């Protein structure tokens, strides 16, 4: 109701403004002076406003950026994260300079050269030297940006890591993430989407012995700090986006193909809580590709542990083989329907 009232007031204010302007116009006509399309007063008024506007623009660019400096580009928690952030700072320095110089020139020119009586514009159709300068200078700056940018890109996406990574599969479906560790053999068992039935959520081929020691977790998954990780990303239904902003990681998951990501976490969750001054801080895996009505709430916690904590945690997890055995047991007692119903209720609640 309050909002409607506010809208109404603004609307009325505009109507009043319109009427006032009409009156001013009519008064001018009554006084009978012949009007040009744009009066001298119009030019002065708008020219002055351009300077005011320039201050507004710089204000709205700089002040909120300063106010929210702790919320933007939070500390990178992966090995390559710092190099991406450095590139970001470099790029912002370049575009910031370009932005402030050109905007200042634009608005100062708009103010300074507004039409005055008895002046004539300067006929200046072109100048090859100037054109050359502002072709070459941006070219040089851009060359630097391209070379710097591509070297970071190559390092993050293409270079093979020096050490052998832990292999983890991140599996996505509407609206849930599931992680699968490759286990002691560090090899993921094969899978087929045709096997995604009932309890076998990932469609794992149980006849493939490599899958025996695989460990499947949902809700949250753990990573050891300072160890290279390789994610294999999969989707069972639509596109999803695996987005881990604090690690500066992002990659879509695509049904029908496996996409890859590699990185090394360098700060444990506990240390990060200290850095962020937030006891409840958790690393998150978000979905960042529109995937349906609960897209905005498709998440999984990531816990970065010390090596020892990680080893303890992973020991407590059940392997695919043992889990399958228990599940088979449950099926016999026919309670699988109950769990299915419970699952459904849980999803509905979400």
């Amino acid at each position, binding site marked *: 109701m309050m*909002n409607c009232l506010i809208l109404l007031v603004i609307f009325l204010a505009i109507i009043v403004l319109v009427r006032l302007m009409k009156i001013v116009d009519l008064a001018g006509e009554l006084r009978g002076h012949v009007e040009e399309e744009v009066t001298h007063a119009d030019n002065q008024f708008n020219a002055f406003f351009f300077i005011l506007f320039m201050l507004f623009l710089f204000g709205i660019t700089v002040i909120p*950026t300063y106010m929210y400096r702790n919320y933007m580009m939070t500390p990178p928690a992966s090995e390559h994260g710092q190099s991406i952030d450095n590139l970001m700072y470099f790029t912002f320095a370049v575009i910031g300079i370009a932005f402030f110089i050109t905007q200042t020139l634009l608005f100062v020119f708009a103010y300074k050269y507004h039409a005055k009586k008895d002046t004539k514009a300067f006929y200046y159709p072109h100048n090859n030297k100037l054109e050359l300068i502002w072709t070459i200078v941006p070219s040089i700056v851009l060359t630097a940006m391209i070379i710097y*940018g591509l070297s970071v890109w190559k390092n993050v996406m293409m270079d093979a890591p020096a050490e052998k990574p832990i292999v983890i599969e991140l599996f996505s*479906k*509407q609206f849930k993430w599931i992680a699968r560790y490759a286990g002691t053999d560090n090899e993921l068992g094969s899978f087929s989407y045709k096997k995604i039935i009932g309890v076998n959520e990932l469609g794992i081929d149980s006849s493939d012995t490599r899958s025996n020691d695989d460990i499947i977790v949902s809700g949250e998954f753990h990573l050891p700090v300072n160890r290279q990780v390789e994610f294999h990303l999969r989707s069972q*239904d639509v596109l999803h986006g695996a987005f881990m902003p604090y690690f500066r990681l992002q990659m879509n998951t695509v049904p029908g193909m496996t996409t890859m990501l590699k990185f090394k976490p360098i700060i444990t969750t506990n240390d990060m809580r200290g850095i962020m001054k937030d006891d409840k801080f958790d690393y998150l895996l978000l979905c960042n590709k*529109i995937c349906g009505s609960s897209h905005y709430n498709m998440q999984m916690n990531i816990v970065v542990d010390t090596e020892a904590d990680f080893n303890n945690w992973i020991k407590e997890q059940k392997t695919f083989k043992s889990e399958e055995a228990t599940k088979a047991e449950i099926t016999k007692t026919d309670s699988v329907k109950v769990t299915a119903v419970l699952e459904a209720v849980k999803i509905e609640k979400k």
Partner: protein
Amino acid sequence: MAHQEHAEEHVHHNDHDHDHEESFVSKYIFSQDHKMISKQFLVTGMIMAVVAMMMSVLFRLQLAWPGESFKILSFFLGDKWAPKGVLDPNMYMGLVTIHGTIMVFFVLTAGLSGTFSNLLIPLQCGARDMASGFLNMLSYWFFFVSTVIMVISLFVQDGPASGGWTIYPPLSALPTAMPGSGMGMTLWLISMSLFIVSALLGGLNYIVTVINLRTKGMSMKRLPLTIWAFFVTAILGVLSFPVLLSAALLLMFDRILGTSFYLSDIVVNGEIMHFEGGSPILFQHLFWFLGHPEVYIVLLPALGIASEVISNNSRKPIFGYMAMVYSIGVIGFLSFIVWGHHMFMTGMNPFIGSVFTFTTLLIAIPSAIKVFNYLTTLWKGNLRLTPAMLFCIGLVSTFIAGGVTGLVLGDSALDIPVHDTYFVVAHFHIVMGLSAIFGMFAGIYHWFPKMYGRMMNNKLGYAHFWLTIVCGYGVFIPMHILGLAYVPRRYYANTEFSIFSGELVNINHVVTFFAVVGAIAQAIFIFNFFHSIYRGKKASQNPWQGNTLEWTTPVEHIHGNWPGKIPEVKRWAYDYSKPGYEEDFVLQTVPLKEGEQEGEGH
């Protein structure tokens, strides 16, 4: 309306022998006159813009105050889509999707190119009409039908298409994946196919007219920059829209015939689908092969309009005419080989990503040249600050502000953390939602006297401009902060994450405040527009003291544009304040004096 139609027909009957007298239907509805068709495009585009802008206000309310009840939501969406005044998540997606579709295609493609290419190509080239008036009429009517179908899709049972305006499959291909992928999506695809037909008919007509129907003396080097921009835009459209049509057709096959062009290995809702061997990434390649040139289809006409209006109101020739022409050409060419920068994070080979980074950053060079040339045109000018001129200065400002962040997003390494966040939303809204729209406003204020024979009110124009640019920046500059805090776009609410709520919510309040005020400010423009059509001050033949041919036509519209012979062109379009002339403008029809250098020669 019906009454008026009847009366007009009646008049027609009585005047049998005046064969140039037209019936209401052939004059206002199925008109083949480019000036009328341009007005049809403009008014349809404006209506669609209002619809899409209202949608953005609705979802901005949800984003600022998630889960709160608003009367306005239940008023527009009813109990089904806004139970108790709280926006439904599926409808949120639907609104976002249709807002984007309408704005990009119906407003900024048809509304901008359709209006000004139609109006200005014959008038500024010196042609009696478009090459084919009939195809031109068809172009409008295909567009009109496609807008009607898109609006109908808002009212189907499961809601409109809601997979985002990029309609990536498999989400858009599987009706079981989300409600909006059912009937709504089918209508979206039909509407878009018709729209593509319209864009192609229009584009071919523009190209043929510019190449063949220029008046005597109008060499390509004497064309105003507006025409150059429309010409290159039309070429981009003709080359890229068919690819979108093929993408849409294959998607229809996947949906209707059960083919697997984009689909493979899919299980939805426990159902194992039969699709095998397709690739969702194929769709993205096809979509962005149109999608990126589309950005320049949207932007180039605005830049062309800005070149003309800035030069005219600075009373100075545009600085570096040939450099501007080359820039338009280079931007047009490069726009075809950068589409992959939308796909760095899709699983495309990273090496291909680096190639696209290279080509993408190259576009900054011609863009920078254009900006510097605009600045130098203003330098030492005698600026007449009309509303059109204000919007053009605003366009240059927003083109810079939106352009520089493109260097962040076009850099594949930097795209990793900001891809699909609000940083992207801020970037492309400043370029398309502000810059291109400002170009459209500038064009309307500047050529209104040519379209309707009357002037728009300047004072209202000033109020409209200042409110719009302040609100525009007020909406989109703070969005960069959300983007750099890595808030993903297309989230119904950010409340599910502690890292995105807290203090950052205040930014959403500021953004929504400016969005609402900015939307209301457009009422000033709409009032000014329709009021001036009927009550505006009568325009003189050349109210802005312009050089180009459209200002040599009579104020009263006639079929064929010029009453006698088509004027002959003797010089380029930018002789403003040329030394040796009494007035500060020289019409293109005025012969060169003896020994006078033309164009860029001094």
